[in-house]
């Protein structure tokens, strides 16, 4: 036999090889998570919220409307964890829309990717004098409703949709405070005393972004006007939001 079957000799599998290969796989798994998390919160959850908000809009559209008599309606006090509004902020992304639920409870509102924004139950509602204060995550693995809070520029519109219609707010200023500074929740933020005529929308979220939460970012907006549901969404939102008829999203440096 000229070409005898040579038995291939295999080196014995060393435990070090196995450990090394497991470490390689583990590293790939962790790398995969690092890629997955922003994709999940930025694409999947954001799209889910847009769908939920659109569904809720359609549901409210189908409900019978009270005739609008010129006074801005104030939503009834919702039950804890009940979704009672949607927040539309073109500055957070032209198609951005996110549901708003009552209370700022950790595991029934803020951490759920079908809610994500909570209303401090001690603060006022849209349409009444005072402060309508919302909280949401800015980073983290579950939902990042207020991730782009730093994108807000003075004069940017924020829209709160309820079953009655659309409340338009205009961004005024942002500040960074310590978590103990609860006077941002006052009827007029930072001032004591009785509420005046001003209607404020305040967003609270963590700061710095992606680096712990030793501070809070607080964004203030001022109420501008109300539009009943029968008049449809505000023209400005339609112009900015491509899902509502805008054919091209405005550039960041463009005057609206």
């Amino acid at each position, binding site marked *: 036999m000229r070409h005898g079957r040579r038995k291939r000799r295999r080196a014995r599998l060393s435990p070090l090889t196995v450990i090394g290969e497991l470490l390689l796989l583990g590293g790939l798994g962790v790398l995969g*998570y690092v890629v997955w998390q922003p994709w999940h919160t930025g694409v999947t959850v954001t799209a889910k919220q847009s769908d939920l908000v659109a569904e809720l809009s359609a549901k409210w559209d189908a409900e019978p409307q009270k005739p609008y008599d010129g006074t801005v309606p104030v939503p009834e006090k919702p039950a804890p964890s009940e979704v009672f509004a949607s927040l539309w902020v073109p500055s957070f992304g032209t198609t951005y829309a996110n549901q708003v639920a009552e209370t700022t409870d950790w595991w029934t509102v803020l951490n759920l990717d079908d809610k994500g924004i909570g209303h401090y139950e001690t603060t006022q509602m849209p349409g009444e004098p005072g402060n309508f204060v919302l909280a949401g995550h800015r980073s983290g693995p*579950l939902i990042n409703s207020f991730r782009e809070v730093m994108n807000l520029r003075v004069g940017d519109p924020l829209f709160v949709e309820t079953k009655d219609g659309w409340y338009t707010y205009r961004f005024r200023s942002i500040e960074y405070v310590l978590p103990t500074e609860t006077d941002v929740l006052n009827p007029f933020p930072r001032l004591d005393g009785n509420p005046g005529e001003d209607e404020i929308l305040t967003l609270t979220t963590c700061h710095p972004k992606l680096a712990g939460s030793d501070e809070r970012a607080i964004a203030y907006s001022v109420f501008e006007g109300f539009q009943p549901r029968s008049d449809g969404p505000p023209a400005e939102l339609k112009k900015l939001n491509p899902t509502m008829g805008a054919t091209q999203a405005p550039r960041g440096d463009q005057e609206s």
Partner: protein
Amino acid sequence: MFSMIWRFFPGPAWLRVIVLLLVAAAVVYALITYVYPWVALQLPEQEVTVGT
């Protein structure tokens, strides 16, 4: 370990490559569907409210 996996599947080399790619795709799918969402729940969330 990689060599054991390679020997585990039968057939010619090109078939093994295809099968291993399918296995890898299945593993990635399982990670995204089951493992990563579970890991996300274990990681600490950051406080976003004032006065808590």
